[in-house]
């Protein structure tokens, strides 16, 4: 495969091999000042992987504490800090950078562009995001104001007022939390704008919107959604900082302010955020499932329409996080119905993935394993979501482990699984080496077993009444064995992720050479060398269908004969 060059403009490798005698300092300088979308994409993904390990370690600590009743592994204050940091890290420092890292690397390649629309804005956005992340973690040493002792934020990742007021959260840890999210929020906004401009203005010749691969399509939808969902959080954080520093009264109930309005502002961001994270994961599945089923994606226009519909409906469901606050029955009904409505376009997608696999010649390589598990886990996650969207059920289950189980099923079972699939799938393109399949299978099966031990069991704990965010529990509640199983599952997942990290590092040095197109895929990124040269394509590609590489490989039976 390595020597095979496809007869396509752009696959011509005229790049001079990078001089190997660069010093470490020169190479570091290269990476710090780079404006290349591929290098920035790699930086994003490495940054996110680092925080995946950090946030995962925090989760393992939490689970060790909860493995036994009346355990003293962590104190209550440390426990609060750890689950706050775990949530904040996984959403803002792992999820978002991971998603935007994939977009950064792949969108220009998939649409046949030279780079993003604004390469310098791209670099700025990354470093702003990175600054936000390190600012958050700096609170571990600077949280009390650098007196030599520090503390991390302990206000939970949704940070309800009035807990965040000066009176209840003295010191600087809450400020670090707010400021770091404002900083990374602006970084995200910059990247979202960049992706939109890239997709609208930089597509190669012939790539109409309806010939664009689905991953860029979903990133387009996600970036549009990001524009209107990250910004409310930024606005609310600005209000919080004004409250804390200038003595204002936005969330100060003593002066007539409202704590509930913070909840509204937070969840106006918080719920669409789930879709900001999960839609790119869908995009990854949309690329991988067809290639490994050897069939074109089923119902391409329906996929696009369903994604747009999900984004649209997701804007009007936020208050289903707040059924227990005591809204009017009219408001409750509205949010019950709108939440149920999300299930329709999501269901369309699941049927489309199944129909793509149906009758296909499925190859169960590691990426496909993760994607297959994803389809079923996501279905289950969606179903428990529909259960909780019914307000009376939510009154019963609110703030219990059932909720934790549900959203981890989405965030881990759907998003993290697809992120792993995506890394296994595009790693050969990025590094020129294949990842080890053996370690990949170990990773998959261990992670799958650990995942189901942990999160399936959590549903039962929730139904048995175990509330979230408690640092320990009494031995007589009947939760002991279940908690033990959850914790063991968590540790198994941790081991699986370590195998994955090891695989990622080792394959870079020892993996077999990948060549241009190791998976026999159909989109434009597989027409250029692995890793692609800095300019991506020597000659700007021209496409005539959704699967340009299929057309080249099968000139007798090209796709454009059948597509409108």
């Amino acid at each position, binding site marked *: 495969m390595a020597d095979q060059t496809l007869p396509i403009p752009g696959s011509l490798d005229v790049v001079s091999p990078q001089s190997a005698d660069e010093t470490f300092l020169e190479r570091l300088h290269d990476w710090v000042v780079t404006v290349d979308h591929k290098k920035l994409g790699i930086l994003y993904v490495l940054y996110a992987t680092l925080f995946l390990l950090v946030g995962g370690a925090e989760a393992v600590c939490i689970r060790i504490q909860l493995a036994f009743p009346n355990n003293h592994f962590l104190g209550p204050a440390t426990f609060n800090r750890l689950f706050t940091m775990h949530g904040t890290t996984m959403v803002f420092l792992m999820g978002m950078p991971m998603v935007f890292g994939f977009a950064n690397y792949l969108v220009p390649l998939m649409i046949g562009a030279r780079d993003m629309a604004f390469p310098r804005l791209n670099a700025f956005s990354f470093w702003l995001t990175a600054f936000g992340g390190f600012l958050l973690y700096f609170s571990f040493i600077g949280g009390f104001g650098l007196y030599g002792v520090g503390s991390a934020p302990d206000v939970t990742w949704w940070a309800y007022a009035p807990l965040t007021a000066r009176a209840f959260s003295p010191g600087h840890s809450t400020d670090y939390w707010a400021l770091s999210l404002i900083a990374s929020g602006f970084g995200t*906004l910059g990247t979202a704008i960049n992706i939109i401009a890239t997709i*609208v203005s*930089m597509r190669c010749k012939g790539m109409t919107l309806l010939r664009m691969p689905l991953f860029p399509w979903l990133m387009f939808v996600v970036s549009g959604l990001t524009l*209107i969902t990250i910004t*409310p959080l930024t606005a609310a954080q600005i*209000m919080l900082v*004004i409250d804390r520093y200038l003595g*204002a*009264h936005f969330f100060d109930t003593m002066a007539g302010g409202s704590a509930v309005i913070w909840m509204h*502002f937070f969840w106006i961001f918080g719920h669409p955020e789930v879709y900001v994270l999960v839609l790119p994961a869908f995009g990854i599945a949309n690329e991988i499932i067809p290639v490994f089923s050897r069939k074109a994606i089923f119902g391409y226009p329906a996929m696009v329409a369903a994604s747009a519909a999900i984004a649209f409906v997701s804007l009007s469901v936020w208050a289903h996080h707040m059924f227990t606050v005591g809204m009017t029955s009219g408001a409750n009904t509205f949010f019950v119905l709108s939440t149920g409505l999300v299930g329709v376009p999501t269901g369309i997608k699941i049927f489309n993935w199944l129909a793509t696999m149906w009758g296909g010649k499925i190859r169960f390589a590691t990426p496909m394993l993760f994607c297959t598990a994803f389809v079923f886990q996501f279905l289950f996650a969606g179903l428990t979501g529909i259960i909780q969207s019914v307000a009376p059920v939510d009154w019963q289950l609110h703030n219990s482990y059932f909720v934790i189980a549900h959203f981890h099923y989405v965030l881990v079972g759907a998003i993290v699984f697809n992120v792993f699939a995506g890394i296994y799938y595009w790693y050969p393109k990025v590094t020129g080496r294949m990842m080890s399949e053996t370690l990949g299978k170990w990773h998959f099966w261990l992670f799958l077993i650990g995942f189901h031990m942990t999160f399936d069991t959590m549903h039962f704990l929730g139904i048995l009444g175990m509330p979230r965010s408690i640092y320990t529990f009494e031995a007589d509640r009947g939760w002991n064995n279940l908690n033990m199983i959850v914790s063991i599952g968590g540790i198994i997942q941790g081991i699986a992720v370590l195998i994955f990290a090891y695989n990622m590092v080792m394959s870079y040095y020892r993996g077999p050479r990948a060549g241009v197109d190791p998976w026999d895929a159909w989109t434009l990124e597989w027409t250029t060398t692995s890793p692609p040269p800095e300019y991506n394509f020597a000659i700007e590609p021209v496409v005539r269908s959704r699967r340009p590489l299929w057309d080249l490989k099968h000139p007798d039976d090209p796709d454009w004969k059948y597509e409108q």
Partner: protein
Amino acid sequence: MSTLSVAQMPQEQPWQLPSRGRVAMTALIIGESAIFTIFVVAYVFYIGKSPFGPTPRQILEIPIFNTVCLLSSSFTIWLAERSIEKNRMRDFSLWWSATVVLGLIFILGTAREWQRLIYHDGFTIRTNLFGTTFYSLVGLHATHVVVGLVMLLLVLIFTLTGHVNQRHAERVQVLGLYWHFVDAVWVVVFTVVYIVGR
């Protein structure tokens, strides 16, 4: 490069995508609108909820002159955009300077209003909920005016030193888009703060 104007593209190249500058500015405006929406919602939600005074009616004066200045700057910047497109650089610098002056009048007017409120009426962001929402909403808008003015001034300096010409028409228009947005937001802020909230 997107700096090529649309008119220069010959007929034989039908593959024409929108300019990335305009697309990005539109996206930025959508994002900014969401930020403003949250602050406006907070303002409207808290109208009349302060348990103690002063109330808007007691201390706010309607800034008619300021508003007229800012809104007419939208007109002058549009004239400037048209001039640069037709390569009339003298007209461009004239209208651009007028825009800058009108913007400066607005921001100075806001500064004087705040000075009166703070030093004369002793009304600050800590005073009550009205102070909190008033200073943050008007302040958020004023911040956007200041950012816009800095960029307008940069263009003005480059124009006066002769570095701006017809090739930059599109970039100037993208900046104009931002300025129009700042003006449009003022219409909302003005309505909410000085008419509905008063």
